[in-house]
């Protein structure tokens, strides 16, 4: 095992440069170290001006997603060892404007999350005093997978469609909509349909499938989108063939 590895880190300092550049650092490798530990080593020991986001360092807060050797990963959950002998190239996630160094602007993503109405919608709310809504473990299992998304945006970074068509609402937001649609407590599927059945909604996806490949939490957004396409289509034909059907 080599003792050090070269990390080529994308730098972008908007005050000084118009284009990003790459800067190389020699970083020691230890068996326990993740890519994030390497970046922290750079920041603490070599160059305090390197900027990137992180918080939990346990793969659950979703802030440390970056492109490592061209692939979107959580840097706190990717061993340096697995990428030896290097060099290891670290860049900000693709698909988001770069604010500085490894930090991307995610305003667009946050807007898209909100657009799908990701909360329980009901015609009538049950008073809290009457206790919980009953939900069997099977009903819970219906949507559980889609509720595991940590908003890390790796899927957006992997999806070429999002980069080509910035209006595309994107994998995680659609999976989140499905998470609520499939929740037995929710009655908001129709409202979400209005957003999702647009071209920029589900129909923009051509099932590249990379979103599910890179998802660190097995949310399978590609599956969520396909399922949504099926139900939107069935719904459509039902309303055409049986217009009297109550909605």
């Amino acid at each position, binding site marked *: 095992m080599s003792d050090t590895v070269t990390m080529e880190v994308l730098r972008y300092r908007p005050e000084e440069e118009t284009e990003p550049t790459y800067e190389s650092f020699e970083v020691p490798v230890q068996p326990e170290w993740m890519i994030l530990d390497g970046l922290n080593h750079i920041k603490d020991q070599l160059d305090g001006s390197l900027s990137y986001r992180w918080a939990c360092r346990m793969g659950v807060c979703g802030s440390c997603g970056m492109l490592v050797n061209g692939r979107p990963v959580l840097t706190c959950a990717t061993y340096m060892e697995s990428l030896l002998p290097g060099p290891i190239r670290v860049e900000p996630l693709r698909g988001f404007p770069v604010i500085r160094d490894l930090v991307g602007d995610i305003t667009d993503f946050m807007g898209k999350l909100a657009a799908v109405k990701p909360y329980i919608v009901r015609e009538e709310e049950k008073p809290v005093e009457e206790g919980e809504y009953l939900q069997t473990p099977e009903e819970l299992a219906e949507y559980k997978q889609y509720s595991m998304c940590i908003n890390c945006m790796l899927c957006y970074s992997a999806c070429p469609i999002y980069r080509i068509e910035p209006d595309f609402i994107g994998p995680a937001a659609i999976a989140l909509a499905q998470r609520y649609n499939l929740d037995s407590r929710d009655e908001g599927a129709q409202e979400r349909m209005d957003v999702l059945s647009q071209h920029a909604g589900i129909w923009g996806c051509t099932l590249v499938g*990379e979103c599910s490949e890179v998802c660190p939490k097995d949310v399978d957004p590609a599956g969520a989108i396909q399922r949504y396409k099926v139900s939107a289509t069935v719904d459509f034909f039902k309303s055409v063939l049986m217009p009297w059907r109550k909605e």
Partner: protein
Amino acid sequence: MNPDYRPYHPKWFRRRVPIFWWLRQAAYVKFISRELTCLLVAYVAILLLVFVAAVDRGEASYLALVGWLSQPMVVAFHVAVLLGTLFHTVTWLNLAPMALVVKVGGRRVPARAILLGHYFAWVACTIAVAWALVGP
């Protein structure tokens, strides 16, 4: 100094998507090849119509078509097309379970079972058609 920078006003850097983005990564190459099989699908559909028309018109026109079909270049091309349609079939059947949620007795049928079902259907169709064309 970056001449475009003004304090407190973001100067985000946007990367352009290269026009040949689909050549940049193995997964994307596979994706674009899969999408392009649609050309083969249309081509084979047209060819089938030509074939049917030829058979309908009589043995002479049928033999003429067979003659064209058995030229080496044409055969080579069609073998390639065949591989392409097989690629279509495999990629299609592999993705099909993703969208399908089948429930039996309240339990979700595992994706593997659905996948196997699809392949089984493919084999069955192939045998049925071949049997009709070749005879027992």
